């Protein structure tokens, strides 16, 4: 069945269908701009068969690629609609994989070149100053902060309290939070505002909902008072502080 048995070592298992395609193209010294699609498809399927025979789970990505190749192959068999014109090249169904393949091969070449650099902590070493004597108290140790450390700190806090009863932490959309902060700033500055004036000139539904949710949250926080003078009338938001002052005068 397979006349040329694969001699692939297990560590050479391909990362994905693209990786396999690149291997087939290089191994068979195929011109990337003129891929013999029937041949490559056959080799691709042979490899899948081989993986199956080893009881390796074939990832869905490989099957998608097999289908894509088969589809291109069938389109190659159809006569070109623009026969006789100069657009033959543009019509080449193989274009669908040629472009992505070139892109992937280029990125692979960059990865290979990167791996050849003298890599820090693998080929060259800097001084190990993690435990530099200057830090006397470990609690005083400072960390370089970045988004990833902020996020992972928050996640580990959530994990830490996950089991505690009576405390429910939900992943709230940050957008409502941001809106709240923004609105409190406005209301604090102006003392009182109408709901309408908090919206942009052409608010979309999301913005209206977001603003409304944020206002409800602010009211819940007891930082503003909400007044509606007539049914369906405009909502007015009054800063609690300003409200107090007015009542006293």
């Amino acid at each position, binding site marked *: 069945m397979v006349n040329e048995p694969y001699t692939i070592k297990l560590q050479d298992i391909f990362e*994905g*269908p*693209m990786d396999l395609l690149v291997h087939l193209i290089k191994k068979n010294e195929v011109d990337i701009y003129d891929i013999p699609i029937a041949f490559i498809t056959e080799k691709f399927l042979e490899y899948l068969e081989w993986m199956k025979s080893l009881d390796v789970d074939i990832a*869905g*990505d490989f*099957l*998608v*690629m097999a*289908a*894509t190749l*088969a*589809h291109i192959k069938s389109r190659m068999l159809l006569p070109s609609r623009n026969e006789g014109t100069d657009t033959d090249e543009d019509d080449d169904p193989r274009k*669908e*994989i040629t472009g*992505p393949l070139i892109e992937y091969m280029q990125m692979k070449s960059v990865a290979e070149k990167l791996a050849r650099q003298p890599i820090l902590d693998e080929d060259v*070493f*800097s*001084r*190990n100053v*993690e435990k*530099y*004597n*200057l*830090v006397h108290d470990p*609690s*005083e*140790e*400072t*960390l*370089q*902060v*970045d*988004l990833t*450390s*902020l*996020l*992972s*700190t*928050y*996640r580990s*806090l*959530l994990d830490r*309290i996950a089991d505690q009863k009576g*405390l429910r*932490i939900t*992943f*709230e959309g*940050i*957008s409502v*939070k*941001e809106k*709240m*902060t923004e609105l*409190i*700033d406005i209301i604090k500055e102006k003392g009182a505002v109408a709901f309408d004036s908090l919206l942009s000139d052409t608010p979309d539904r999301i913005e209206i909902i977001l603003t409304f949710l944020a206002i409800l949250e602010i009211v819940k*926080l*007891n*930082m503003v008072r909400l007044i509606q003078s007539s049914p369906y009338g405009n909502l007015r938001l009054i800063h*609690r*502080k300003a409200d107090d002052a007015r009542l006293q005068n």
Partner: protein
Amino acid sequence: MLQIKSIIESLLFASKGPLNVEEIKKVIPDAEKEEIKAVLNELKNEFEKRNGGFVLHEVAGGFQFRTKPEHKEYIHRLFQPSPARLSKAALETLAIIAYRQPVMRSEIEHIRGVNAGNTIRLLLERKLVRILGRREIPGRPIVYATTQKFLEIFDLKSLKDLPTPKDIDDLQTASKPDDQSLPFKSESADPSTSENNS
């Protein structure tokens, strides 16, 4: 082959702690102990004579490169916490304020399980958080939020750009089918490629 002196110097440079003759011998078995000892003393003299920023110091039965004591003032300045450096406690508090703002001190303390007064003060001083206002409930507790400077330091355009724990959790799962992660989008609607990614 590399010079033994050069190898020993690189080991002393990269090592976490002081190295003694036996430890070096283990890494360079070909070298004689006497030779290693001689090289260490040679290096020590060389760096002393050089009169640079650091010397090879004999300590705890071994040798270690160390800066000279007279430089400590400058090195302390180098390590002075900049706005981009925070203690673990401060980072935790900042994370809670960032993700749960507007938030009260009691909520922060509830999550962290410890008093947060000092770290909040530090974050206020560093202008990473601000007082947004007070909740009009008994005790009128202060409500905290993050600042513009917070966004600058974390390189965010707005709070909306803050990644959530969910974003990280999503990385563990396969991408959603509508994520256009198919190897190829075939321009013709091909049933065999459109629903296969799960």
